[in-house]
């Protein structure tokens, strides 16, 4: 770097009021300060991650309760339990809260926030205050949305299609729209922070191809945050103005085109699927090698596949609109491009499978979740290709097949990865071990409950049951009852971890720095880590995932 004569000033700009830990006086980030103020004004990425974890857990509970209401109502076909309006509000709240307030921030804002600096050997994210701002923006958006729920709810579906949302719905659409718009900025700022951090804050020796896949996946996710979110911000702003002032852009009454909203919406919302999926893939790519004690198979391919998915996903949004009146040319183009998603997805799945091959497998809770993830993601992904096939789509578009498909991706994929990651890094986050037996039991409950809930929905969809139906023809009742029964098992599976994880906070065994014999810089520091992550600059291994068992690659062999 020539030409700059920047000076190093003698004192640091931000005077730390945190006592510096030393080897004989270790202070972790949780106990460095204990006032409420020190939490709500925290700039430590780890504390902000915990703030996010607490908030998204709350939103998960709200979304799950709404889902429970939906499943309860669908036990009977004639809508005797809920009125149509209440049912519509329940599934809208479920969708809005789960998509924007749980799934999108779930892994990036919690694990990503906590782990990226640790994994790359940095003291913090590049912009710690911005990171805190992101959380406050997130909460502000959540507040608006919750206001709409408390006032009486929204009944537009999470997709907010015009002109239903702008000119016809009599529910509290505006606060919900404003809330979702605001939350977008939180995503953008988080993505910005990650991109800059991963580019500039890597510790010396941490080259791109020594980064864990988790970091690659978050880099790809962040690119989507930056490139997709602004478009839906614009779309939602136009929708808000449409509803408030009837500007007409999406309103056919004035010559506007409601399909244009769908284009702008899906330009974001299809890539948003990968905002939810890619971080989960990152988590799985950490768990599988750790519990196989084996280097990740095809590391470079998996890394590139993350970037590949993030790019390809921008070319396929129109497959949500095959029967919505877009041109046949567009439908053919979007359908063909959608099949390209199969390539990077296959890379990921087969490489995880190959990693398990000839490993030294420990079937602890995180690994159980990871194996469940692989199976369910494969099914969810391939059923996505059914939907991308034009002729099949004409039949199963907007049926329960779609519902089943994206729950296999969102729950089977993202939520399982989230829970797997939560168990994997719980010792690192909290310094405590959870109860392994309960962990395995709940993983089993979730896997079984999930499949009983959602597999029947594939059949319902192919039989032709449309989604978002509060009442339905009686011939679909049996499968719906089965699905609702599965949901109770799933709910139990969700409740167990909430109990035993909380229990472990006070009564769990103290965790060592590296309870899983895992590789990666986050395991090189104490559990929980000190405020600035490392007491001394960590040494970066020459290969990522340098586990005992490794394939021969680029001429190196380890035993």
């Amino acid at each position: 770097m020539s030409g700059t004569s920047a000076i190093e000033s003698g004192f640091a700009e931000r005077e730390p009021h945190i006592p510096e830990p030393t080897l004989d006086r270790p202070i972790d980030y949780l106990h460095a300060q204990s006032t409420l103020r020190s939490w709500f004004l925290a700039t430590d990425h780890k504390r902000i991650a915990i703030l996010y974890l607490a908030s998204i857990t709350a939103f998960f509970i709200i979304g799950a309760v709404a889902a429970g209401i939906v499943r309860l109502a669908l036990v009977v076909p004639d809508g005797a339990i809920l009125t149509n309006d209440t049912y519509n509000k329940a599934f809208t709240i479920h969708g809005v809260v789960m998509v924007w307030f749980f799934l999108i921030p779930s892994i990036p804002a919690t694990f990503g926030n906590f782990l990226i600096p640790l994994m790359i050997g940095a003291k913090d994210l590049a912009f710690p205050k911005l990171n805190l701002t992101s959380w406050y923006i997130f909460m502000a958006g959540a507040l608006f949305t919750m206001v709409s729920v408390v006032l009486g709810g929204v009944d537009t579906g999470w997709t907010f299609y015009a002109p239903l949302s702008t000119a016809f719905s009599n529910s509290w659409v505006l606060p919900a729209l404003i809330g979702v718009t605001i939350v977008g900025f939180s995503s953008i700022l988080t993505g910005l922070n990650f991109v800059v951090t991963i580019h500039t804050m890597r510790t010396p020796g941490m080259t791109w191809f020594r980064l864990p896949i988790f970091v690659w996946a978050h880099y790809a996710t962040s690119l989507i945050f930056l490139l997709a979110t602004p478009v839906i911000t614009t779309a939602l702003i136009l929708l808000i103005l449409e509803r408030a002032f009837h500007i007409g852009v999406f309103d056919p009454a004035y010559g506007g085109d409601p399909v244009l909203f769908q284009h702008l919406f899906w330009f974001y919302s299809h890539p948003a699927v990968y905002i939810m999926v890619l971080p989960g893939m990152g988590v799985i790519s950490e768990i599988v090698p750790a519990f196989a004690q084996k280097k990740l198979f095809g590391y470079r391919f998996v890394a590139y596949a993350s970037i590949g998915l993030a790019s390809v996903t921008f070319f396929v949004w129109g497959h949500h609109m095959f029967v919505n009146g877009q041109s046949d040319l567009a439908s053919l183009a979007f359908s063909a491009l959608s099949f390209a998603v199969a390539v990077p997805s296959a890379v990921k799945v087969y490489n995880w499978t190959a990693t398990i091959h000839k490993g030294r497998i420990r079937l602890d809770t995180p690994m159980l979740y990871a194996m469940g993830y692989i199976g369910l993601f494969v099914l969810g992904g391939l059923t996505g290709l059914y939907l991308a096939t034009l002729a099949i789509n004409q039949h199963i578009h907007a049926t329960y097949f779609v519902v089943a498909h994206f729950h296999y991706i969102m729950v089977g994929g993202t939520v399982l990865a989230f829970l797997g990651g939560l168990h994997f890094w719980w010792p690192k986050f909290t310094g405590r071990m959870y109860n392994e037996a309960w962990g395995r039991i709940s993983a089993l409950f979730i896997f079984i409950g999930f499949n009983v809930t959602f597999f029947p929905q594939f059949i319902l969809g192919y039989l032709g049951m449309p989604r978002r139906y509060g009442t339905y023809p009686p011939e679909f009742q049996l499968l719906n009852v089965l699905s609702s029964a599965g949901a109770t098992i799933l709910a139990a599976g969700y409740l167990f971890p909430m109990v035993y994880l909380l229990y472990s906070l006070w009564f769990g065994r103290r965790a060592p720095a590296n309870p899983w014999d895992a590789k990666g810089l986050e395991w090189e520091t104490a559990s929980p880590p000190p405020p600035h992550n490392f007491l001394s600059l960590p040494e970066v291994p020459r290969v990522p995932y340098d586990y005992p068992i490794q394939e021969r690659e680029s001429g190196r062999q380890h035993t």
Partner: protein
Amino acid sequence: MRNPLARLTDEDRARLRQHLRVPVLSFLALLGLLAVNVTLGATLPFAQVWALELAVVAVMVAVILLFSMEIRHEPPLVRLFAGLGFFWVAILVGMTLTDYLGR
């Protein structure tokens, strides 16, 4: 604190010229291109003038990016970011037009 313009030394003048040459030149270029576009917009000399107008705009954008925002001095990564933004705009517009032009 530095002096008002009149009391500048020759050395200072030279530094000033060195530092301000590019901003002033790009300023003049932008004004010139704007004049072209305004003239085209005011007179509408031929039917498909919008294509020429958009081409002029593209040049203006390039001038701002390369000279005002100094992309040409930035590391490749920053250039890549800027390029990425415009490429993504192209995806958004192009793929949407497959619908509108195909209807």
